[in-house]
């Protein structure tokens, strides 16, 4: 939001003045992520992850375009061309490891960013649209990541493609024709590989477009903050630049230390060795797992082993898996509490840290575990808790909870905290 006290863009040199008249792009940047954007003064490190996610998208686009210069999307040579990138192309190994681990890093960052939303109820009015667009971005990311994982055409690529497109087969009546249409054949083959490549190239730019909408929607109410109290006066804010460019820069450096440690020292730690075996349509690896970032949803998919009211188990699993993400779209309306931040919502805070977080941890673990007892039973319990959190616990807690008193303003909250620190 441009608060009345926001700094105004005043180009001084003649070239920038000329530019400002013809195409005010520098002005736009200044107001969006420069000194012209007033931001709450009390943002903590949870607020770094939006910028980090944007950075990850850039890593993926740059390394991805480079990889596409060397990769061949044809079932006969895709695996070999991937190995060609790894062995023969100058720095090809680095590009591929940066891209593969970049996907993982992107998901770590985005999951943290989403969790920040849960913790501080960032989805609440007036920021619902930002949240809804964010969920759209997450769905697009999942589709993109899935199709990207198919491209090396290893065993996990092939069987992942088969299982995931098999999900569509569960839809009544149109399922099977739809699956054949999506694959362009009866099983994943050249047609599927080619179209996945095409879409894997396209979708990141669609994501970029939605990211721009996400940031646009953010600038209407302005950034949220850890107290959940809206900005009221000039002393509540500082300009984005240099205050948060510096803080984000520090966060970015910390992120890069961890990310590059993976790229250079353990590039395959998050991958699956079976994907270094060329795709073989006649033998399924003993233990098919998707990439780690899909595990919670995969666990929910596999939790349904029984039919229910004539709905077959297979369809139930698929519906539950999609519902697990779609339920996020309704969060702004499921949570009716007038208070945003979990800091002032003691009951919700306990349910998040001691209920939801262990539940997610369990789902992450179980999605990667084999489809055997006792894992299946635990997946069922965890999946049930997951939905209960959003559909039962959150609405009830937000109605009955006795919240703590909110500070008058962001400034008050900051000064009170500093006062305490000074008194100690």
């Amino acid at each position: 939001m441009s608060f009345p006290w926001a700094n105004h863009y005043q180009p001084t040199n003649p070239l920038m003045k000329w530019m400002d008249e013809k195409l005010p792009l520098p002005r736009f940047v200044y107001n969006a992520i420069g000194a012209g954007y007033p931001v709450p003064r009390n943002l903590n490190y949870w607020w770094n992850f939006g910028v980090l996610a944007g950075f990850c998208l850039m890593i993926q686009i740059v390394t991805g375009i480079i990889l596409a210069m060397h990769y061949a999307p044809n079932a006969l040579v895709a695996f070999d061309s991937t190995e060609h990138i790894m062995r023969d192309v100058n720095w090809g190994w680095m590009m591929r490891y940066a891209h593969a681990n970049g996907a993982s890093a992107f998901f770590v960052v985005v999951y943290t960013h989403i969790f920040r939303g849960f913790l501080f109820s960032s989805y609440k009015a007036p920021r619902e649209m930002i949240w809804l667009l964010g969920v759209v971005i997450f769905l697009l990311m999942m589709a993109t990541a899935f199709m990207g994982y198919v491209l090396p055409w290893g065993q996990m690529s092939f069987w992942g493609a088969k299982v995931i497109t098999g999900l569509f087969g569960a839809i009544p009546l149109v399922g099977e024709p739809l699956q054949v249409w999506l694959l362009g054949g009866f099983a994943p083959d050249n047609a599927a590989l080619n179209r996945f490549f095409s879409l894997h190239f396209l979708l990141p730019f669609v994501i970029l477009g939605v990211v721009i909408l996400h940031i646009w929607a953010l600038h209407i109410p302005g950034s949220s903050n850890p107290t959940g109290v809206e900005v009221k006066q000039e002393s509540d804010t500082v300009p984005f630049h240099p205050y948060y460019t510096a803080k984000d820069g520090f966060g970015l450096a910390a992120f890069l230390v961890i990310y590059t440690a993976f790229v250079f020292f353990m590039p395959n730690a998050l991958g699956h060795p079976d994907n270094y075996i060329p795709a073989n349509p006649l033998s399924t690896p003993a233990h098919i797992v998707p990439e780690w970032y899909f595990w919670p949803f995969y666990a929910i998919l596999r939790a349904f082993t029984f039919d229910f009211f004539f709905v077959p188990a297979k369809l139930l699993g698929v519906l539950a898996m999609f519902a697990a993400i779609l339920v996020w779209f309704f969060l702004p309306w499921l949570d009716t509490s007038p208070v945003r931040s979990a800091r002032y919502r003691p009951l919700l805070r306990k349910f998040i840290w001691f209920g939801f977080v262990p539940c997610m941890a369990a789902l992450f673990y179980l999605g990667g575990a084999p489809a055997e007892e006792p894992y299946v039973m635990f997946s069922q319990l965890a999946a049930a808790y997951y939905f209960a959190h959003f559909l039962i616990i959150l609405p009830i807690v937000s109605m009955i909870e006795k919240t703590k008193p909110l500070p008058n303003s962001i400034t008050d909250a900051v000064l009170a905290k500093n006062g305490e620190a000074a008194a100690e």
Partner: protein
Amino acid sequence: MAEATIDNTAVADGDEGGVRRRDFIEIAAVSFGGVGALATLYPLISQMAPSKDVLAESSTEVDISAIQPGQAVKAVFRKQPLFVRRLTEKEIAAANAVDVGSLRDPKTLAEMTKEGHEDMLITMGVCTHLGCVPLGAGEGEVKGEFGGYFCPCHGSHYDTAARIRKGPAPTNLEVPEYEYTSDTTVKVG
């Protein structure tokens, strides 16, 4: 001058019975454009369906003479695995001993095979859950709790007539269309 123009328009629109010439033109233009747009959409969607060469590979011949009781081979049909298995006496007896009404997808062994060849179980090697290749056709692979096939992906167990008995798969393994072209060869597709 201005008045004259207005009069002209009124005449040109032919304002009779509430239907103006312009309404007709609008409806005609939108319908024509709409039909055109739909017609353009069709090839854009249809191009993703299986191409001619993919459809052309749609039948396979299998020689079954060398398959011993208790043995199975994996063939390829439409780029997907096909299980051809000669059942042992015991396996046939086990399959027939089941109460068909209690099954998720009720079929007898006779319905899963062809008359006169009840010992030849020919099915797709594609789990009806999400499409993995079940184990049990290869030498030394686990056959699951019911002695037929076992899908390791999400734990579906099939019995010796390839019927789903336990796990998430909704139906029995699919029996493709096939016929015996002689006593020892099968044409699938």
